């Protein structure tokens, strides 16, 4: 069974703080993704990575950066958190050449 884990289920941060969200997958997948989920907007792609140290911007990268130093781990970084980044953050992974995305349980981030 593919397992994607995220470091925190709930996180509360203050405006201006640097925030790290961690994601780990145990199936040796090449591709990893970060989405944010907001009511009425669905899932929107922030960044993705198709290999170690490689990254590509998604549809809404502004205010975010990512890091992938190891194949199994993909980190999302909010350099200076703002209230409009309050959201549910979902990490996903896929194997090269396959189509199914495997999601983690999500991190609900609140920025005060």
């Amino acid at each position, binding site marked *: 069974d593919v397992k994607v884990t995220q470091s925190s289920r709930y996180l509360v941060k203050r405006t201006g703080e640097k925030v790290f969200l961690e994601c780990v997958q145990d199936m040796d997948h090449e*591709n990893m993704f970060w989405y944010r989920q907001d009511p*009425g907007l669905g899932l929107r792609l922030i960044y*993705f990575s198709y290999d170690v140290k490689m990254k590509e911007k998604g549809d809404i990268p502004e205010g975010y950066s990512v890091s992938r130093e190891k194949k199994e781990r993909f980190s999302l970084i909010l350099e200076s958190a703002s209230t409009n980044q309050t959201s549910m953050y979902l990490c996903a992974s*896929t194997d090269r050449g396959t*189509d*199914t*995305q*495997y999601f983690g*349980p999500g991190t609900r981030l609140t920025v005060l």
Partner: protein
Amino acid sequence: QQQVKQSPQSLIVQKGGISIINCAYENTAFDYFPWYQQFPGKGPALLIAIRPDVSEKKEGRFTISFNKSAKQFSLHIMDSQPGDSATYFCAASLRSGGYQKVTFGTGTKLQVIP
């Protein structure tokens, strides 16, 4: 911007009824159309998927109907059960190198009442 439009936003169905969720897309280059199911407190999980060379795919009580010319596809849940209560996302994706870039719909919250 590539878009996938999903309706309705929410749906209440009686137990045993048929739930229908509709999606429309614009980009004819999309080559894979999955539906994901998300229960509260969980991440989305793949429910069923179809490719554009097929007009219908059925897995148990779940069926995707696909209309390529109209650029529309829909999810039908037959004999809906309270355990089907969840949020459903349609999606469309296209392959770029070794990965699929996925565009999700806005989601439909389904409630099946006894």
